[in-house]
């Protein structure tokens, strides 16, 4: 799966849930940005993992669209529920693209520090940074590093 495919798949799901337009960004994720996003990790029954990061304000905007309620009426649980459902849908379709037999776990909340460590420990198979109303949305498909490439 290349970056273009990853973005198109992500956008098709995002557009089903949100009214805000999602655009691909040329920016790369740096360690500083990691601390500005909320993170969910979805594991597969193989070695691949899907990492999803979303700006907290974008997550509330997403929840507002999904619940059809104003942001100020939403709880942290509402925001996590909406973000979790988006991440689960995206990861389910990504895993299906990688291999039919892959199954995905429920999304697990990750601390930024653990995300930094994960990104250093694992190899990125595909990643894309996008933005909705200038709020970052990052997705990466990760796998264990190939020993020969180290």
């Amino acid at each position, binding site marked *: 799966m290349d970056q273009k495919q990853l973005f198109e798949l992500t956008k098709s*799901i995002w557009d*089903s*849930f949100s009214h805000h337009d999602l655009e691909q960004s040329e920016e790369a994720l740096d360690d500083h940005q990691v601390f500005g996003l909320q993170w969910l990790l979805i594991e597969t029954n193989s070695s691949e993992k899907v990492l999803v990061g979303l700006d907290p304000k974008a997550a509330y905007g997403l*929840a507002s669209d*999904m*619940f*059809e309620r104003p942001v100020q009426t939403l709880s942290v649980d*509402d925001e996590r*529920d*909406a973000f*979790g*459902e988006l991440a*689960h*849908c995206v990861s*389910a*379709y990504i895993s*299906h693209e990688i291999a*039919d*037999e892959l199954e995905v776990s*429920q999304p697990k909340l990750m601390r930024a520090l653990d995300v930094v460590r994960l990104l250093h420990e694992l190899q990125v198979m595909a990643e894309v940074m996008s933005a909705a109303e200038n709020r970052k949305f990052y997705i990466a498909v990760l796998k264990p590093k190939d020993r020969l490439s180290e």
Partner: protein
Amino acid sequence: MRVLVVDDSRAMQQIIRRSILKMGRNDLDIRLASSAKEAMEITQTWMPEVALLDWHMPERNGLELMSDLAMLMADIEFGFITTETKKERLEAAIEAGASFVINKPFKTAALHEELEPIFEKTKDLEQRKEQQIEDELSNSQGLVVPSKDSLERAFNLLSVHEVRVGDGESEHFSEDWLPCLVGLFSYGHSRIISSVIVLDIGGAFILGSGVSEQGLLNIAQAKSEKVLSEPVANQCEKAMQMVSMLIGEADSENPLELKQLSVVNSNINKLESIMNQRKTQRVDYELWSQALGTGRMVLLMNS
């Protein structure tokens, strides 16, 4: 149309609910559950006609929940709304009785396309039940109007709390009778309905609540919400089987039997038309229990 949506995401529940409401039907009653456990709790006091299930949920998955619900409710229709795409799993869902599987995220039109025939089929089934009463009520030779005392004795054999039976006032069947339980009685293997019993919600709960104190609390709540659950209907079925012995002649070779007991949710005026079209004898009873108040029971027989 009673629709149960089960999805562990509350955001997704709302999306599905809104999509169904966009069908524009005025008979929709949609309830939401976040887990199989919550779904089973809801169905203790409310019987959905259609259940829309997620596949991946903690504890019990959608397929297991479908099996649980199907054991409780024979006529329920199922659909899956899921991220699951594996062909063998989707086929397993259809083989197990699901009418459709659509993938998340879904288009509202796609959901409507799947639901419309199911809603029509469910509505037809309800209408057929009502038509059956109208078409088949006839021939009540040898039937006996049971006395209040004999009914009281029979009902108290089944109930843990005292049930009293008195004379009821003959009232028109109107919307305030809904939902009600309608029992159809016939002789042996005959398809001809010989008599009909109608229980309003109060009567159904009095006869259907031979249970513990905790059960009574749940039942009192269900009664106030006007929902008839499967356990209540099952207990009523036992009471109706006893009534059949009192109505029918003591003929062990050809006993009067309860042929069908159904929850009727609409078109109560069909019962009124039966009264008008045929020479039907009507007997009204009032049921009373200290724990559950009063209820109405009507016996219809050809005179």
